[in-house]
Every structure is written in structure tokens, then in C-alpha cells.
């Protein structure tokens, strides 16, 4: 599992917020102008740093929601007991400065040459880096077949809902709503488990390349189910958001 060495030093820099977009009641997408941004890969993240008037500093990591070549965008879910996310979702506005460094991480990334078929499994805001992968595929003209299985609590919690509703050749979006479903809901209405994966995931024989992102419990259960159904562990990449206390 050797990686590509990135030896460029990651320095802090000040980005300018150009837009804050409402995704759901608790989720915002923050679009940034980052002078001299070196570019990123789909799936990478950045560190952001907030400083108060007393010099107190808080740092957190956020996945990049935009594709390589697009302006850097972060999609942030407010955690009510958090210190950083409520500031980003409720206080930050266009014209503000935001200190960040990145891009960071080189394993949970996808390039068209990595091929597929792609299985993208998202729990809640775990969809963010997978959306970067989807957009990257679209922008590069890749024809790698994709299935995205996206689990949310309710329809109102679905991030990128309009974007995901746009039919895209080669991309199947399968949604499940675990807590409440609107009348006439045509998607699934249960948690992602082995039975659901057996219905919607690529067969193991197709040698899919899988990216799983979401809360720890989701990622643990789903990745275990996939391995038990014959998926090769080295082709199942995971990113866990769960329980980081105050992101």
C-alpha cells in the first residue's frame, strides 16, 4: 500500500469566503478563494484554524466537497455541542477570512485511472468527499460505472439533494431514509446492512473499488459486511467521522 510521497510543506494561509450555501437545516457549503491553491485530489481534506481575540486557537479537519479544478468548497454539518462547526455554519459569511492548510491525505482519493466499478457508501455528511469524487468523474469525462448508496435520517437531511437527483450516465444513486420517509418515497427505508448491500452493491466478482465514509458505526458495519461478502479489504477505503467530540 505504498503511497505517492508528497513532501511539500503545508503552510497556513488565509482564504476568503466567497459564498455560504444552505444545504440542509444544519449543513452549509462554504466556497473559498484560496490564493495559490496547489490543487487537490477528490477525497482529500483541509485543516482549518480559528483564532479568537484572546489568541485561543481551535483546529479541525474538513473534507473538500468540490472537484479538483473547482474552487475549494467545504461542506460542514453543525454539531450543536461543537466549538468550530457552529461557527462555520452559523457565523461565517461571504467576505470573511478563513485560515486553512492543505490539501491533506492521499489514500482516500480517487482518480479516473484508478478505475472501478466504483461503490460509494455514505452515511450522513460522509457524502461530502464522495461528492468530490462524483464531480471529478463527471468533469474528467470518466465513464467508470458508479453506484452511490447514501443513507440519511430523513429527506430533509439529504445533502446535495438536487444535484444527486440529476440523472447522470453511468451513475446510479440509491438512497435510504432510516428515520422518516415522505409519502410515496420510492427509495429504501432501512439501515444499510448486509441484506441491503446484497441488493444494491456490485457483486464481489466485479472487483469494485469502494469508498465508505460516515459515522464510525456506519463505516464499521458496512465495511465488515462487504468483506464478509467477498470484497477485497485492500479495495475498501474508509473514512470515519464518528465521535470526534466537537468537530
Amino acid at each position, binding site marked *: *500500500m*505504498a*503511497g*505517492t*510521497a*508528497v*513532501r*511539500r*510543506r*503545508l503552510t*497556513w494561509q*488565509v482564504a476568503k469566503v466567497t459564498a455560504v450555501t444552505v444545504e440542509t437545516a444544519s449543513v452549509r457549503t462554504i466556497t473559498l478563494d484560496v490564493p495559490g491553491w496547489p490543487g487537490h485530489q477528490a477525497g482529500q481534506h483541509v*485543516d482549518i*484554524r*480559528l*483564532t*479568537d*481575540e*484572546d489568541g*485561543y*486557537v*481551535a*483546529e*479541525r*479537519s474538513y473534507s473538500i466537497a468540490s472537484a479538483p479544478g473547482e474552487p475549494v468548497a467545504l461542506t460542514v454539518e453543525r454539531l450543536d455541542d*461543537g*466549538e468550530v462547526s*457552529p*461557527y462555520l455554519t452559523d*457565523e*461565517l459569511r461571504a467576505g*470573511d*477570512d*478563513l*485560515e486553512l492548510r492543505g490539501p*491533506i*491525505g*492521499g*489514500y*482516500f482519493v480517487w482518480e479516473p485511472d484508478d478505475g472501478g466499478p466504483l461503490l460509494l457508501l455514505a452515511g450522513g455528511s460522509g457524502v461530502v468527499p464522495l461528492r468530490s469524487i462524483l464531480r471529478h468523474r463527471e468533469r474528467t469525462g470518466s465513464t467508470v460505472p458508479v453506484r452511490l448508496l447514501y443513507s440519511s435520517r430523513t429527506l430533509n437531511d439529504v445533502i446535495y439533494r438536487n444535484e444527486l437527483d440529476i440523472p447522470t450516465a453511468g451513475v446510479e444513486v440509491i438512497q435510504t431514509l432510516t428515520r422518516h420517509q415522505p409519502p410515496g418515497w420510492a427509495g429504501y427505508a432501512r439501515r444499510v446492512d448486509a441484506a441491503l448491500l446484497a441488493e444494491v452493491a456490485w457483486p464481489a466478482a466485479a472487483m469494485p473499488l469502494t469508498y465508505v465514509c460516515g459515522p*464510525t458505526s456506519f463505516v*464499521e458495519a458496512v*465495511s*465488515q459486511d*462487504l*468483506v464478509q461478502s467477498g470484497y477485497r*479489504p*485492500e479495495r*475498501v*477505503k*474508509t473514512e*470515519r467521522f*464518528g*465521535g*470526534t*467530540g*466537537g*468537530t
Partner: protein
Amino acid sequence: MAGLGLGKMAVMSPVSRGFHRRRQDPAANAGRVPPGQYVTEDFPVLSAGPTPHTALDRWSFSVGRRGQQKTWSWAEFRDLPSQDVTVDIHCVTKWSKLDTAWQGVSVDTLLDLAGRDGPFALAHCDGGYTTNLPVEDLTGGKAWVAYAYDGRPLEPEHGGPARLLVPHLYFWKSAKWVRSLELHDTNDPGFWENYGYHIYGDPWREQRYAGD
């Protein structure tokens, strides 16, 4: 023009408009939380792939040069003298957890039995993960191969059957599902170190990424 020319070399971070501290660490935590970290009561899980589940009768642990390693079975390993340690841990993703209680075998004990045949170690794990450490950071009562947490067998998602515990470095160095410490003459980068994370990883110097 008093003041000019007296500026600090370090560039000060700009104040984030409207940002106010929400967390107040208890005074007891003073001096225990490295820069850029916050204290969590949870025990977050971060791994690059699925959690491996290795049966204990197929588990072994090896230490030494490649091809010349001393190897213990699970039963043999559990017969080695163990220590109970309570330490603070610091993850590069910004959380720190204080007073975590572990049981495991000191790496000093393992190297005493296997020989300290090299200045650097590359930890190898189930699932293919690796991480590199200087042997001097594994010795002198600073590192363990831990198999119990909080009085219970270590859960697979936290690295069970056994994980490395090197609390004075960022926690990615405390490799989960560890199966061997391979001794080397050179400090070859491991998994995350190859992806731009710091070759050493001292949380007190905030060595998160290469060049920090």
C-alpha cells in the same frame, strides 16, 4: 517609528471575526493538551480500511531483523510480564484523550528477548498498515504492545487483539492490529508517512505533516 522592526518572526493568525471560545478545559488539564488539540471523552476510531479480525490461534507477534525475528504465539505473548499504564493520547485529527488505561507488554521486554538489532523499527499490521519509529522512542518505558483497554480485551475497532501504544507521539504511530516490529538501519516511512504525514510526529511540536 517605535515598534517597527520589533515584530515577532512568527506570523500571527488573524482573528476569526465572531469566533468565541466555547471549550474551557479544567485547570487539571493544564499542560496536558498539546497545541491545536482538544480533549474528548469519546474514543474516536480512524482507520484507512475495514477492521481486520484475526483469530487468536492465528495471531503471532514478531520482533527483529527480517528473517531473524523472534516470534511469540498469543499464549506465549500473554505469558510475558505485562504492565498497567495510564497515559494521555493525542490523535493527529485533533482529539486528545486523557488518562487512558491500558495493559500490555513493554517494548523493552520484547527487545530484551529479541535483541536491539537496529536503530529504527517499522511496525507491520494486519490489513497492511505500517508505521516507522526510532527504536529509542520504543524503549525506556515509553512504548507497549497493548492488548487490554479499561480492563477489557482490546476491541477490534480499537486495534485488538493488540496494538502498539506510543503515547508521546501522535496516535497514528500507535499502530492498530500490530503483528511485528521489524528492525532496520534506516528510518523508512510507513503508510501515513508516505502520504505526507510527519516522519516523527511529536504532538508537542505539532508535527502533523511533513515539514512541520
